[in-house]
């Protein structure tokens, strides 16, 4: 307590000094004035500076100011955030009346930063703001969709097309190997975590800022190193009440060129027959008799059915609907915004759906000149109708590719043909259409998000703000699998089963912020001191049931057996003191420094606290005299920052070890047993990132063109990682601080906006170049191998990128025995299998990882986004493009869709497989005579993932009726196409699929497909 008192003392002295100085100056030559905005309201906080000097004052709440000028006449520069700067001549004793004009250019915008706001031109950190006007027509069931391609250094990828799902957001590369790499989301000052969830309605958003460098994020300390996404919700503006009603309706489809081409029924029967006969030809060296061939595929041309299972699972023209109503109003004392939104996205897979109903009330106002208060309440309820599981080979999407195409969807009597395949050596799968339709799998998420604050202004320049934020999340899940649903290779009837789950989370945080703002002379200073504490607790309740009397009562009460009944609780807490000083001198020299000391419950005793300092400086060269001749350049700023941030995205109790139940039976009765469940690491500490950022911001041609270039270098050390342990220790992994990773890169962003007569045009683009490299792994082994022998490996080792794709380098297909004989020895190889590269040059390809090499880099050389838009009279249009270039994907699903055993349906291209020396195929498909040396992790499954998305094209028409008879003030109609075109050579449908994530990047094992959406919408303003 004493300590913080002493920190504050210098601030008090400074303030006393200021009073003294102000009085001393009052005796010189004076100019008085009043500043108003366009509506005539008094403007507080405008800066009045004497041109050619660094002296200045600021207008008071009544818009009045008094300034002392050095001579009898001077030129005053009057500026205010968001308004056009004016220059006026003034003489001693005169009284000025100044009306400020609004300025729409970006440079004067207020940028939302951590625990505050800053003028764009004074920002010395790296803060990207999303242009929400460019993304307004996108059918976004989740607000993270709005980030795609919009900000340099920020990648938003859609690994799954599940309705309402969140996008994966990465800021400046993958900064961590083992702890999470998602950014921190902060909604109206409330850090809600590393996920925004599904319930948040994007239409409520006023502003999204993304903090990227250390000076911007260090104020969030241990959660800052992956970047911070700040979301501010809308509030009413002064003026008459405004009612907005908007609605949109869209239809979703999968374009045929994004579908994988598999064999049809007849072709598959032929494939089966060829396999059977080729095996006899090869192993028994004779021509098989037709009557030896099993009847199921003896005559492929007589195959009765051919089902394209993937097509069968699709819900063509699946509707997307969005409705939003908001009422906002405000006067000088009170602002409010009430909104209600409903989003409903039916999935492109049958019987899947997401809907979300969200209501919000934001209100804030002044109690008196010194006290203001505010409250934001957001309640929402989202429902997911899920498919049982969609990601990976064994689930709906993968299975719909590889299931036997010779089976029909329906039997002759109209019932489902339940068990697909499962005979003549083909895998048995559940009919995917039936699985989607008949398995109940539903998740309900209710959420209450609140922010409340009280702010007290005192002593002119001080403000104290106390806020309390709360999040309640109620998540329930139920799945019922009827008895007639088969399993993989498990024909029905089976035991029906039910799973029920409830996860309830409550999270609250409180912030106490003391700010000091002052401008004196050419100095502007902003000081922030704060304390924050946050606590989250989750309780869980799980239960399952089996053995139902029938499928008609899918409730646990009917289950003869209750399974997996369990309750749990977990949580974390953190607290931190922090402070920040922003200092501007003469509008030219900008400095900022911040410090946060934070403790987290997740870390070991004695290492719970971490310190996170950051500093930055900026120089607005354009305000220097020597630049005054360059008239086209309106602003130019050089800036740099350095600081330390942390990452605490590890399990809640990682530093501790626990006992777990391991019961036993003695004398035929239960006895309780306990075993150790993990190895503790009491030394577990913060993962820290040190980040340097250098940037230049330019504005030219009356701010029509803005340009930003940045360089950053971020080194993350003490990385938290679950590292492999020899099993003889009793365990296979433990959590430790190992390793060091570097992410460095360049980011460029430019925007040009012009209007020629009534034709407006704007272009905005960005390019991000990130290189990540493992610098050290200080574990017992200097490499981390993730994945498995047949499913793709990723390797992380010093000097290489994180999770480089690793496997055998496939050199071709062995044409004949002679070729095998003269190649390095591959045990059991026969003609037609893949020939691999002998990496260790010992003339043997060993059937393990010894001959494996890096066969791909999952990280793009660069990513980019481009938005072009314009308007003409009542029309407006925009095109959004984004892409990634120069990276590789390991297409794991092809280990199945190219499986030559005849147990799965295979790619149409498999017709060009190796049959014999005379028919060696196209060199990509191995023989059907064996499986060895075909499906091991190898470069055959690696493809370039480079792609360009024409993400969205939209066209709008705005109608402003002149006749007062119509009730509305304006109406905008629009049409848009979303996920419109994908331009790529990648054979999969979505180059963003990343089934495993983390240190296992760039693997595609199929996922919920992405649909193309055409939307029509109407927005009314009353």
């Amino acid at each position: 307590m004493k300590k913080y008192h002493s920190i504050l003392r210098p601030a008090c002295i400074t303030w006393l000094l200021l009073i003294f100085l102000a009085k001393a100056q009052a005796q010189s030559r004076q100019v008085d004035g009043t500043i108003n905005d366009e509506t005539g309201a008094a403007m507080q906080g405008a800066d009045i500076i004497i041109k050619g000097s660094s002296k200045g004052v600021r207008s008071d709440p009544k818009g009045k100011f008094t300034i002392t000028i050095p001579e009898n006449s001077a030129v005053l520069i009057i500026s205010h955030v968001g308004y056009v700067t004016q220059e006026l001549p003034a003489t001693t004793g005169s009284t000025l009346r100044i009306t400020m004009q609004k300025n729409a250019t970006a440079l004067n915008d207020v940028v939302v930063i951590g625990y505050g706001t800053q003028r764009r031109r004074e920002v010395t950190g790296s803060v990207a703001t999303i242009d929400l006007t460019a993304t307004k027509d996108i059918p976004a069931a989740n607000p993270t969709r709005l980030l795609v391609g919009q900000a340099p250094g920020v990648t938003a990828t859609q690994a799954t097309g599940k309705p309402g799902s969140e996008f994966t957001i990465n800021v400046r590369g993958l900064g961590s190997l083992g702890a999470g790499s998602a950014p921190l989301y902060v909604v109206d000052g409330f850090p809600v975590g590393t996920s925004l969830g599904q319930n948040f309605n994007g239409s409520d958003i006023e502003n999204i800022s993304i903090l990227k460098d250390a000076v911007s994020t260090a104020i969030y300390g241990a959660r800052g190193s992956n970047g911070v996404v700040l979301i501010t919700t809308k509030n009413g503006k002064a003026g008459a009440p405004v009612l907005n009603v908007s609605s949109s309706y869209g239809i979703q489809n999968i374009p045929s060129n994004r579908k994988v081409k598999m064999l049809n029924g007849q072709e598959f029967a032929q494939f089966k027959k060829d396999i059977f006969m080729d095996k006899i030809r090869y192993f028994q060296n004779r021509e098989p008799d037709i009557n030896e061939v099993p009847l199921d595929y003896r005559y492929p041309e007589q195959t009765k059915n051919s089902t394209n299972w993937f097509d069968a699972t699709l819900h063509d023209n699946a509707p997307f609907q969005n409705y939003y109503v908001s009422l906002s109003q405000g006067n000088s004392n009170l602002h409010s915004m009430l909104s209600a939104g409903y989003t409903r996205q039916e999935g492109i897979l049958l019987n899947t759906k997401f809907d979300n109903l969200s209501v919000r009330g934001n209100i804030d106002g002044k109690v008196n000149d010194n006290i203001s208060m505010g409250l934001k309440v957001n309640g929402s309820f989202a429902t997911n109708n899920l498919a049982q599981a969609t990601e990976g080979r064994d689930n709906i999407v993968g299975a719909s590719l590889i299931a036997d195409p010779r089976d029909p969807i329906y039997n002759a009597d109209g019932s489902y043909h339940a068990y697909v395949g499962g005979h003549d050596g083909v895998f048995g799968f559940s009919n995917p259409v039936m699985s989607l339709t008949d398995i109940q799998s539903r998740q309900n998420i209710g959420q209450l998000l609140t922010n409340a604050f009280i702010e007290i202004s005192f002593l002119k320049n001080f403000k104290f703000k106390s806020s309390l934020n709360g999040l309640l999340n109620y998540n329930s899940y139920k799945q019922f699998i009827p008895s007639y649903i088969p399993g993989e290779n498990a024909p029905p009837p089976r035991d029906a089963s039910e799973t029920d789950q409830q996860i309830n989370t409550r999270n609250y945080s409180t912030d106490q912020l003391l700010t000091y703002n002052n401008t004196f002379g050419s100095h502007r200073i902003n000081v922030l001191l704060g304390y924050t504490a946050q606590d989250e607790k989750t309780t869980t309740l799980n239960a399952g049931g089996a053995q139902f009397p029938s499928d008609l009562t899918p409730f646990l009460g009917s289950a003869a057996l209750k399974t997996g009944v369990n309750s749990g609780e977990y949580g974390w807490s953190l607290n931190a003191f922090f402070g920040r000083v922003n200092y501007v001198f003469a509008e030219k020299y900008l400095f900022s420094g911040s410090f946060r000391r934070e403790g987290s419950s997740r870390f070991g005793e004695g290492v719970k606290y971490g310190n996170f300092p950051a500093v930055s400086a900026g120089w607005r060269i354009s305000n220097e005299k020597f630049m005054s001749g360059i008239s086209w350049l309106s602003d130019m700023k050089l800036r740099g920052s350095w600081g330390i941030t942390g990452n605490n995205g590890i399990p809640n109790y990682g530093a501790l070890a626990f006992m777990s139940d391991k019961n036993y039976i003695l004398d035929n009765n239960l006895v309780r047993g306990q075993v150790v469940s993990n190895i503790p690491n009491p030394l577990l500490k913060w993962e820290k990132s040190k980040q340097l950022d250098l940037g230049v911001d330019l504005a030219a041609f009356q701010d029509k063109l803005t340009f930003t270039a940045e360089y950053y270098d971020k080194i993350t050390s003490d990385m938290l990682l679950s590292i492999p342990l020899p099993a003889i220790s009793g365990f296979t992994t433990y959590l430790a601080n190992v390793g060091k990773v570097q992410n460095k890169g360049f980011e460029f962003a430019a925007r040009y906006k012009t209007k020629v007569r009534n034709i407006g045009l704007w272009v905005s683009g960005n390019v991000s170049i990130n290189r990540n490299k493992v610098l050290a792994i200080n574990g017992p082994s200097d490499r981390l191998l993730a994945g498995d022998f047949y499913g793709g490996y990723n390797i992380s080792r010093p000097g290489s990128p994180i999770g480089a794709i690793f496997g055998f380098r496939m050199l071709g297909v062995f044409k004949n025995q002679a070729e095998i004989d003269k190649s390095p020895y591959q045990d059991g190889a026969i003609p037609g299998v893949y020939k691999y590269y002998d990496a260790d040059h010992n003339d043997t390809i060993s059937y393990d990882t010894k001959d494996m090499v890096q066969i791909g880099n999952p990280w793009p050389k660069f990513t980019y986004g481009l938005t072009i838009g314009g308007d003409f009279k009542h029309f407006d249009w925009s095109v959004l493009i984004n892409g990634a270039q120069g990276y590789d994907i390991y297409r794991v699903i092809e280990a199945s869709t190219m499986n030559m055993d005849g147990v799965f349906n295979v790619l149409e291209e498999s017709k060009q497989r190796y049959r014999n020396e005379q028919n060696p195929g196209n060199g990509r498909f191995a023989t059907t005579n064996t499986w060895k040396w075909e499906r091991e992790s190898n470069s055959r499954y690696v493809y370039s993932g480079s792609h360009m998305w024409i993400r969205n094209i939209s066209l709008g028409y705005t109608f402003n009726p002149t006749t007062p008879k119509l009730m509305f003030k304006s109406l905008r109609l629009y049409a848009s196409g979303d996920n419109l075109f994908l331009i790529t050579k990648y054979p999969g449908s979505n180059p963003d699929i990343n089934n495993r994530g983390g240190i296992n990047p760039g693997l595609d094992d199929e996922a919920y497909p992405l649909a193309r959406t055409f939307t029509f919408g109407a927005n009314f303003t009353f």
Partner: protein
Amino acid sequence: MKVKVIIIHLLIIMVTLSCKKDYLDKTDPTKINTGLFYKDAKQVEQAVNGVYGTLQDIANDQWITNELPSDNTTIDFNPGDRGQSDRIEAFEFYTVNGNSTNLNTSYIAYYNSIYNINNTLAKMQGATGLTDSIKAVNEGQLKFIRAYLYFELTQYYGDVVLITRPLTQPSEAWTYLRESQSKVYAQIETDLKDAVTGLPIKYQAGHVGRATKGAALSLLGKVYLTEKKYADAATTLSQVLPLGYDLNNDYADAFNPQKKNGIESIFEIQYNASVDGEWSSFIYTFAPRLSAGAVTGWPQSNPGGWNIPTNDIINAYEPGDKRKDASVGLDFKSPVTGETVPYIKKYNHPHAVYGRTDDNWPVLRYSDVLLMLAEAINEQGAPTTDAYTYLNKVRHRAGLADVSGLTQQTFRDTVAHERRVELAFENWRWFDLKRTMTPDELTTFLNAYAATEKAHPTVTRQGVPYSNTDYVFSAFEALFPVPANEIIVNPKLTQTPGY
């Protein structure tokens, strides 16, 4: 001064809104921290019980490594699931390599159990309320289990990592490498001798099923026999005789869940169908693949079709051997081929709930001790009267005539045959083959068995030819490769020769 007052007030608000000192101290409320455990006799007993619990996991999959490679069992070939080609099937076809997920799982399970033993042995020293006699019984049980686990491990891998105390630092794990088999045996013998001293002959009600003195002696006898220390084996095993064991009248009773831990039982892994998480499900693994409810009694079953008795063992039963009907089921015909698919019957008993059986897993039985004793005596020169008594006692119960007048070699062969059928599908056949044969003999023997099975598979393969690497046994394959993953983690760990 007003400024100061306000600031002080604000700071008071800030500090009071901040929290108690222990705000950041969080622990998992659903579990006990290891640092707070092993404090009293009750907790130590729970830790010992936990070690027994780990044996269930091991027993559930042990047939893969102990029975499937032998001539006793094969697989119900599934042409539709070739993903198994390099997994479980590899143990039948002798194509096991270091990437075997089954070996990996097994290896982890064994050493996890050993960790809990070592940890409990060390931590119990500081527990309160632990009398010397209770401590001795706890130590005896843990050392018996440790010896059993190392005995299994050294049969699998030969030289293995030997670790008998808890690690103080995770980094120590990299310093442990494979030790010679003789060192491993020495440790096993030490542990078992301690167990013999510390363990009681019988337990009071509520504790039946814990390791006994008889169990320790029987296992020590088996270890000596494996080491070819026949005199030691005979001495040790004969100490089991006066402990009150006998054979059941009905061979099938040894496997009957209604008669668990009977007079013949020396050590078995305990299960109970009616206790959550404590049931067994062996028959669901062993029943023919397409048998649905025909064997298990529950039509929703989707059995594994693993560990199928071979024609070879079915034909090995002498006429009139009562054990055949108790051990092998021959009443199921495949709906696809119409042919009989045999299955292991020992672990098939009616059970009230789908998927949950009550069958215990037999580890050591009195008949095993009798046959080991007969073998140990015979190996010291010739069959004695006692040796015949022990052998014929087992044969008599099976409804077979006594044998007499055998040479050492024919007696040896008779015991080997007797062990095969008496202990069929109890996870001893693979070890018995390796124990009683030289590597060359084993290679010849297994390739002969493989040739028979390949020519006339017990279960038809529906026209699918064998791969040319299937069923080719080389001498080095008598030992398994250590999981490749372990060598990736610790490159200093050596691989089993040949792999």
